[in-house]
């Protein structure tokens, strides 16, 4: 994260798969849906690309929350990427919450290319919750 300017807080890192999540976020944009600006979107080829290391890294970098967005089950462009991603996500989330990291800081959502509004809602909801929780314990 760039250290030069003071980032918006809370700050969410959203890994969005190219075919659904990112397309959903794109739709939110072209439909001019207004939503909280507290999200940095990283477009990835498939949510299956995202594993525990990316979630850990985002927290270590000082993001207050991490969002992984994949397709609905059965819709994955690569057939099973979102299943794999969800399993990995579930395990690392379980470990993080066992260590006292708040549930709401790490979130997985299934959002299709047609659900621009849903994407905006998720970002708004997560931003509100993170605002209540306060800054991540890993902000240096």
């Amino acid at each position, binding site marked *: 994260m760039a250290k030069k300017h003071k980032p918006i807080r809370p700050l969410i890192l959203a890994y969005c798969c190219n075919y659904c999540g990112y397309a959903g976020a794109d739709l939110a944009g072209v439909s001019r849906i207004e939503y909280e600006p507290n999200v940095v979107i990283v477009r990835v080829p498939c949510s299956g690309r995202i*594993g*525990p*290391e990316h979630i*850990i890294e985002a*927290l*270590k970098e000082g993001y207050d929350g991490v969002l992984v967005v994949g397709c609905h*089950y059965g819709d994955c462009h690569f057939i099973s990427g979102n*299943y*794999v991603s*969800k*399993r*990995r996500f*579930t*395990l*690392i*989330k*379980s*470990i*993080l919450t*066992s*260590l*006292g*990291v708040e549930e709401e800081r790490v979130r997985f959502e299934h959002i299709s290319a047609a659900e621009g509004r849903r994407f905006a809602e998720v970002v708004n909801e997560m931003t509100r919750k993170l605002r209540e929780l306060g800054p991540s*314990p*890993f902000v240096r």
Partner: protein
Amino acid sequence: MVKKISLVIDELTGCEGCKMSLLELIEPLLDSIMRDEIEIVYAPILLDAESFDHADIALLAGSIRNSEDLEKARWIREKVDILVATGACAYIGGIHGLGNLFTWRDLVSGVFGNVNHEVADEIPSLLEYTKPLWREVNVDYFIPGCPPNPDTIAKVLDGIKRGLKPHEIFEARTVCDECPLKREEKSASKVLRVIDTPVEQSTDRCLLEQGYLCLGPSTLAGCGALCPKKGVPCIGCYGFVVKPGESFDNAIARTIASIGASFKIEPPERIDDEILDTIGTFMKFILPSFFIPRIIK
């Protein structure tokens, strides 16, 4: 004449298992000791020397759990050229690192009930959490294992003698590479526990593929696949393979991703319930080396 190597052996908070492994090593070393190539200058289990001025190599086992451990680790570090973190406790935190899931206050009251937490002056006080050596002092080499196989200890000592770097001593081989069980590239669709479903005595099939959570694919080789050979899944006591320059976090992440997620469980979110004790399964020895080494409250 070859220069005499002076050796220090000690243990901080541990179970004494590492000391047993180190003692086993003494026998093969006896020859060199007789020939005056190696001298043990400080080792409370063997000698009554109360101090030493300087030594070449220290084999230090155990983790840093209390103020005495911390003092001792620093004391030894100052006096030796090469500090070797010996055993899982010293290297990555060890099994009692799972105590980091509780605050030290909860641990004390859980065991002793409602006692006064004010510790008497003469007793070393507990630190906030269990730490591997690397969190407090510079470590030059490591010997994995809980306890390390004496062959592994000998291998590291030999590597040090030959001037190898730590990652040159261990290739990136895993327990699977040493395991004789047969793999068929299948993945299991449910998680089995040895306690509920004992492993078939005569099995020759990979335990992970049968559904037992075996950490062999991620765990550093060196034990000769001791556990899977006897039909018990590997619990990762040698620590995960860490590539040069890589963090423990990455090694842990890779393990969770490759082993945990290899189970074809549906719906995917059920995987955590199936495994039951996710953190205890994947971080049995390595929790104190994770970027969150203990419960945050």
